[in-house]
């Protein structure tokens, strides 16, 4: 629900914004009310406008990072799940190292190479997510492969690709999807932190993280400038977590009420 409201707001922002993003006519640090529903920031830009544009970036990050993390993570996790002996141990160690590698450091390295942009932020967050998803997928795949129905399918001579498509993927999907939805929330937070640190979306594009950074100095005199992006972040992340719960109920026939 929360996600839908925010996504709706973001969609609207492509057709209509209360003010032009770079319109500074409204006076600085105006309190909420009047022409500017949420007030203005220290450069006199309309906060609601900024918030909506920031929402685009938040959702783009969530979708992009989940796409990168999901595709890379599930593919690698599947391969690792099938590995045996030393190859299996090696895969586990590599994944653990990747997970231990801080997302921020990874982002800084990528930024150092290519310059800060939304793309690098998504890439960095997606790669970090891929490692976590891969580890989860690997464990789940191993679990499923040990089940008797896999042995039964192999005895019947059903090919590996078919077994993966019909037994393995459906059985790991509920858990992986729920995890991806949770990760989407974390990705939004990670993008906010990166932008807050100046490693994410470069100005003049508004990102919730950078809005927070810019509002920091004036938080006591104009709390709306900090509260608005802060609350938006919380709402989106909670919304994504709730979506994760909903997905879990949907994906599992044992819980589905027919």
């Amino acid at each position, binding site marked *: 629900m929360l996600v839908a409201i925010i996504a709706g707001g973001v969609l609207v922002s492509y057709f209509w914004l209360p003010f032009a993003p770079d319109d500074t006519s409204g006076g600085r640090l105006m309190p909420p009310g009047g022409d500017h529903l949420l007030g203005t920031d220290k450069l006199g830009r309309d906060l609601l406008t900024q918030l909506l544009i920031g929402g685009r970036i938040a959702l783009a990050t969530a979708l992009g990072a989940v796409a990168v993390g999901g595709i890379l993570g599930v593919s690698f996790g599947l391969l690792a799940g099938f590995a*045996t*002996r030393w190859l299996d141990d090696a895969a586990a160690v590599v994944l653990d190292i990747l997970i231990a590698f801080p997302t921020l450091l990874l982002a800084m390295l990528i930024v150092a190479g290519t310059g800060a942009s939304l793309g690098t932020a998504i890439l960095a967050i997606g790669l970090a997510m891929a490692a976590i998803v891969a580890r989860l997928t690997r464990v789940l795949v191993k679990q499923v492969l*040990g*089940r*008797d*129905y896999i*042995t*039964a*399918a*192999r*005895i*019947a*001579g*059903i090919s590996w690709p078919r077994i993966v498509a*019909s*037994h393995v993927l*459906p*059985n790991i999907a509920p858990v992986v999807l729920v995890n991806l939805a949770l990760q989407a929330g974390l990705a939004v937070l990670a993008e906010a932190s990166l932008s807050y640190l100046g490693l994410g979306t470069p100005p003049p594009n508004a990102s919730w993280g950078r809005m927070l950074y810019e509002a920091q100095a004036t938080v006591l005199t104009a709390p709306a400038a900090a509260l608005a992006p802060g609350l938006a972040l919380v709402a989106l992340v909670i919304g994504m977590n709730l979506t994760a719960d909903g997905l879990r109920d949907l994906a599992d*026939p*044992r819980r589905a009420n027919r």
Partner: protein
Amino acid sequence: MSLLAVEGLTVRDQAGRALVDDVSFAVAAGDRAGLIGESGSGKSLTALAVTGLLPPGLSATGDIRLDGVDMIRAPEKQRTAARGPVAAIVFQEPLTALDPLMTAGRQIAGPLRRLHGLRGAALRSAIGEALAEVRLTDAERIARSYPHELSGGQRQRVAIAMALACRPRLLIADEPTTALDVTVQAEILDLLDRLVATRGTALLFITHDLPVAARVTRDTHVLRDGRIVESGPIADVIARPEHPYTRTLVDSARRFDAALERTGRD
């Protein structure tokens, strides 16, 4: 020639410990053999080795011929070709033997589609037949049910239907009744007994339960710590157990029966 001939089968783990040690037995077409032993005696591993599907990390030596194909050394392609049409397994735990996310009908359809190339209406009627054969009434509803909507006995019947749908010549039953209630157990044993008899399917029956083995098998092999300690027709093994371990098995089964008798009379 035997349908299944196992000669000097040894299964080792990564540390080189022998989990199954120099096991030899044979099952002729239409015959019924039993592997009896307590948990950890290597009976289930033997069953997996026979199909060439040992878990990763375990390696088999010796000689296994399933319908003439070397299940240890032959290339995977040949082993796959021998496996499906010849042998099928029914497992102990009907909960993990069926994919929880697949309806019973679709699970039975898998092997039928692969091995008999059935599609559409022919496939549907074959599924119905398979379910009817294992005495599942209301086959339509069961075919549409997920495993968690079925009882343990029904699940095991579905698993048996799945295993027998493609008319294997050898059915490996790995403790198929251990996880079931005693009454359901008796029904499933009768069912297996009848199906195997009417079709002339060979049976390799694995169990820790001597009375159960006595009911469905002809030749039996007693396994202990990975070795066969005694072999012979089940009637002889029960009447004149030679190995001390077999004697313990027979004695404890007798004591159990005697206890039942006594309580019945009081």
